[in-house]
């Protein structure tokens, strides 16, 4: 167990170092001014190294995960939860994603956030986020996972609302937290049900008893847990917070809202694989929600003009893809997609941040264009990311997306496959719409901005390049050959019962692959036609079906529905409870009783004439009456 001892130290440090960074930066960062990033960035770098080390450890010990009950957390009644850590292959993959992207984002932020008033605050929050995210993936029980889960939610809140002097930012932060809370409501109840049913929250303990849980209970558990995932991973109908979350600084969008936190829902469902795998209904729900979200978000993304909003909806769509995979039973494909998605989507966001940086804060793509030559590094890295997202051979996205679609097809969900193909097509269209509008054509920015356009500093571009490498290559490295790649073997201990179909190059598998590739290329071509060749076409198209265009532009009216149904009605109801019920009924009753006595006293007031002889009369008459009554009662 010597190796395990070193793992203990590694795990402890992985969790604690970012926390130390958070506290020190919060306490002393202000005094360090422009150097506030030194401590947090250094600590996160060390942490990333440790995360890679931990991954290496898992790589060597694939069959026996590292489980360590550090110390007990809550002991009450017959229940028990502890600060316990677990590192298995699934965690290992997450560690890689979180560690590497987290570190690169930190470096990138040094350039991106330079000169901001809250420079130290930003790095403090980022470190707190790293702490919570590591906690989430290292936890060995649901409760500790929930701690990380809420912790990343908190950091998301803080970082979205980082520029709290803007109303939209503070509003968006709050919205993110509250929508997530709705999901957490389900998660909490799910945990209760798990706890009451199995008596423990530890993953191993719960999964050991998974087969003894009744079907109905199991379905409830899965659905409730999935509610949490829906909130955190921005699935329909709880996706509304993610587009608004783009109010936060762009590194935040890249790290939290693309590469790591939003994947937590996927991770959790995958983690609870032994539960979900036993409930077909739950799996179906997961798949349907994921599939619907994928195409739903893609339909919205296609008309958005804010560069970050496009990527945000693309992220929702991608997350839908992952859930589609999990629900269809293609577990490994889902995690595979999560893995590569983290890299290319994070890269995409960072690049968009670089674009925004170059444009002096402008986010509207209608005012961009022709940036290809002005900011070449950004352009090339972003192009890699976009191609990877669209899924064109041989970049990362291709392998993962294809496995998902192939999985859905192989499990007999042909409709899902079809929807997936359409979504892939739409993805290609909106991704390259974004690329063409931003980088090609002539610049539509005004002269002042034009003069100001410049490539970002090294501290930003180097992370872009570093991230572009895995975004391009990692898919082929771990996913080759299809359905039998390294990642499949690696995740086998986690998804122990999943069967892998044989992949036939000259059979169904190859055909599906060809179709998806063709569709992607078609989408790119369509984008080329619409947004580069014949620019007037989109407008005419929009005019032809105004309702569809309008619906897409207004995000399918989801925000409007939420504004009316839950928000306004809750506030109106609460107001009724307060001014109507609390003040009038309850306090009315209290004051009414008081007033009744007051009225009664008022009627008695004339008896108090203020004249002493009247009182004397009362005394004597009363005394006499008492004597008579007493005499009468005692029978004298």
């Amino acid at each position, binding site marked *: 167990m010597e190796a395990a001892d070193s793992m203990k130290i590694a795990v402890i440090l992985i969790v604690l170092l970012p926390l130390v960074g958070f506290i020190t930066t919060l306490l002393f960062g202000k005094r360090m001014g422009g150097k506030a990033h030194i401590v947090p960035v250094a600590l996160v770098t060390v942490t990333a190294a440790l995360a890679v080390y931990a991954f290496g450890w898992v790589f060597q010990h694939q069959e026996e995960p590292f489980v360590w009950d550090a110390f007990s957390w809550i002991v*009450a009644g017959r229940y028990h939860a502890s600060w316990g850590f677990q590192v298995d292959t699934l965690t290992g993959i997450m560690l890689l994603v979180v560690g590497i992207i987290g570190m690169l984002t930190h470096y990138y932020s040094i350039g991106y956030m330079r000169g901001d008033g809250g420079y130290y605050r930003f790095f403090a929050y980022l470190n707190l986020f790293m702490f919570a995210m590591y906690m989430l993936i290292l936890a060995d029980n649901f409760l500790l996972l929930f*701690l990380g889960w809420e912790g990343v939610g908190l950091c998301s809140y803080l970082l979205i*609302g980082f520029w709290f002097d803007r109303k939209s930012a*503070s509003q968006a932060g709050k919205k993110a937290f*509250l929508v997530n809370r709705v999901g957490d409501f389900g998660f909490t109840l799910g945990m209760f049900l798990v706890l009451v049913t199995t008596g423990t929250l530890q993953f191993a303990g719960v999964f050991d008893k998974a087969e003894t849980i009744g079907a109905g209970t199991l379905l409830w558990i899965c659905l409730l847990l999935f509610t949490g995932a829906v909130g955190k991973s921005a699935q329909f109908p709880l996706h509304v917070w993610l587009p608004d979350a783009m109010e936060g600084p762009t590194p935040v969008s890249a790290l939290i809202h693309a590469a790591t936190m939003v994947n937590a829902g996927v991770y959790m469902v995958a983690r609870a694989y032994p539960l979900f795998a036993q409930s077909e209904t739950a799996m179906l729900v997961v798949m349907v929600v994921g599939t619907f979200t994928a195409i739903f978000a893609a339909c919205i993304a296609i008309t958005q003009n804010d560069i970050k909003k496009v990527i945000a909806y693309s992220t929702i769509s991608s997350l839908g893809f992952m859930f589609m995979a999990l629900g269809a039973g293609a577990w490994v494909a889902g995690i595979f997609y999560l893995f590569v998605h983290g890299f290319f989507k994070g890269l995409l966001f960072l690049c968009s941040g670089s674009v925004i940086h170059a444009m002096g804060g402008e986010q509207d793509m209608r005012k961009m264009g022709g940036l290809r030559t002005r900011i070449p590094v950004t352009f090339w890295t972003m192009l890699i990311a976009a191609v990877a997202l669209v899924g064109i051979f041989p970049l990362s996205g291709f392998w993962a997306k294809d496995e998902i679609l192939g999985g859905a097809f192989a499990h007999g969900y042909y409709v899902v496959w079809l929807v997936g193909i359409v979504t892939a097509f739409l993805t290609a269209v909106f991704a390259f719409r974004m690329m063409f509008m931003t980088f090609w054509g002539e610049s539509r920015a005004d002269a002042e901005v034009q003069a100001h356009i410049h490539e970002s500093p090294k501290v930003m571009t180097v992370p872009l390049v570093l991230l572009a490498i895995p975004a391009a290559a990692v898919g082929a490295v771990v996913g080759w050959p299809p359905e039998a790649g390294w990642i499949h073997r690696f995740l086998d201990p986690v998804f122990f019962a999943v069967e892998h179909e044989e992949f036939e190059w000259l059979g169904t598998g190859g055909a599906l692959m060809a179709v998806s590739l063709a569709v992607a290329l078609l989408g790119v071509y369509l984008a080329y036609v619409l947004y580069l060749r014949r620019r007037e076409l989109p407008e005419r198209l929009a005019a032809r079906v105004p309702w569809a265009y309008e619906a897409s532009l207004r995000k399918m009216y989801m925000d409007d529905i939420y504004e009316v149904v839950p928000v306004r009605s809750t506030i109106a109801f609460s107001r009724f409870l307060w001014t109507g019920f609390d003040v009038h009924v309850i*306090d009315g009753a*209290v004051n009414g009783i008081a007033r009744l006595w007051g009225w009664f006293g008022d009627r008695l007031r004339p008896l108090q004439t203020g004249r002493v002889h009247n009182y004397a009369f009362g005394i004597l008459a009363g005394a006499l009456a008492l004597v008579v009554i007493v005499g009468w009662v005692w029978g004298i």
Partner: protein
Amino acid sequence: MSWQDQIGFPVLSVITFLPLAGVVLILVIDLLRRPAARLGADGAVEGAVRRQTWWPTTYKVISLATTLAAFALTVWVLFVFDKSTSQLQFVEDVMWVRRFNIHYSLGIDGIAALMLLLTTLLGFIVIIGSWHYIKDREMGFFVSLLLLQTGMTGVFCATDLVLFYVFWEAMLVPMYFIIGVWGGPRKIYAAIKFVLFTLVGSLLMLVAIVAVVWYVNGQGAGLTFDIRALSDVVYPYHLQFWAFLAFFLAFAIKVPMFPLHTWLPDAHVEAPTAGSVILAGVLLKMGAYGMLRFCLPFFPDAAVDFVPLVAGLSVVAIIYGAAVSLVQKDLKKLIAYSSVSHMGFVTAGIFAAIAVADNAAGMEGAVLVMFNHGVLTGALFLMVGYLYERTHTRQIAEMSMLATPLPVFAGFFLFFTLGSLGLPGLNGFVGEFLSLLGLFEYSHALAAIGALGIILAACYLLWMYQRTMFNDRGEAGVMPAVSLRDISPREIVSLLPLVVLAVWIGVYPNTFLDFLHTPVQYILQQMGPSIESARDGAVAHLIEATKGLF
């Protein structure tokens, strides 16, 4: 276990009466300093007395010293405390009124120990917090605070019914003055409302006390007011029903449970900061403490029958308090209603624990919520008070973007807000999780509704935070008040212990839960036979039982 074996001096009495000793010291010095002033000055005594600038500092230091000493002793007591037994500890017992066998007897179990810690902790914190808050008749304010602390400490330590009742009532007086003299514009209304509500309850309780003691005496056991002895008696159902109702009403008003809560917002809004902190931090806990101490072990059968009603009302309180908080315009009122919501978790946890066998988690969680609520809401009230000292308003609509001039303040405020909305890792979560878990064991549906309260808690707290600290009006409508000064070291000192506790309980609550295991088991043991007989269709049974009484 007696104090002789454990610590060597009657520590509970010392803790209880240390603040009183401080009061005596202050009054004596106050008497002595007047002639001194007369000698020093030529004629104008009043002016000379007022010119004694050392005096305010002196009585504040005395107050702080006595309360700090009480706190230190409490910590010592907690170290010596034997967590493995449910016996009362540090017991003191002196005959008080021989004729009626009333004793002056003090003693604590684990639950009382935690409440004692909370009381003494908030006791010295409010003294630091009110250092510059009161402008008028300041000495009286500190004297009242000290008297109040003696009363509260006594309530948690007393093990004789009469002594308990005396402390329970004695505590009302200083609180009445704190609200009525140093309160806001409607202070008289609020103070009277507070006292009347509480009196209604405590008179019912007095009647029940007499009934219980009378019954035990009639059984030939002789007069006794000893709480443990009385709780071992098995009372006939008829007596249980009515006495439970009387005790329960007294405590439910204090908690306060929906729909008996309307005194709370008024009292909180009008009370000065220290009053609000104590009110929310300690006084509300007495209600729940009383339920644990009396309602359950004395009247187990009636208590079990009332579970559906109480659990239902608790859940209503959780949702109702949260919903009403959502639309409050006054910061203090918002936090006051949130107290109603949070205390709903307490009553729900307590009564869910006795509805199902082996459900100690709910009760332990409830006690932990009591403690946490004291820490967090106390801190929130303290901070609203600090804010008021700067902005001179508590109207949410009159604030915005305060995080710009007050960054450190905003940080602390956020910390406690997050604790209050139940962020895992801070203390609020642990308690609410456990008590909701207890409720879940009793009824899935009720727990689900109760969990909605957690969503609402996030809504009202974050909305409140956004409206006060952040920008919620668009770019034009905001004028950050640049001239405000950020939180001062004194204020940070008053908040730090609460921060430490919040993190401590959030990360390692076992330190505190360990105190609760045996006392909760003891209560549940006494409830044991009744829990066994707790049946389905409890509502129907309650109706049956009620019919049978008439």
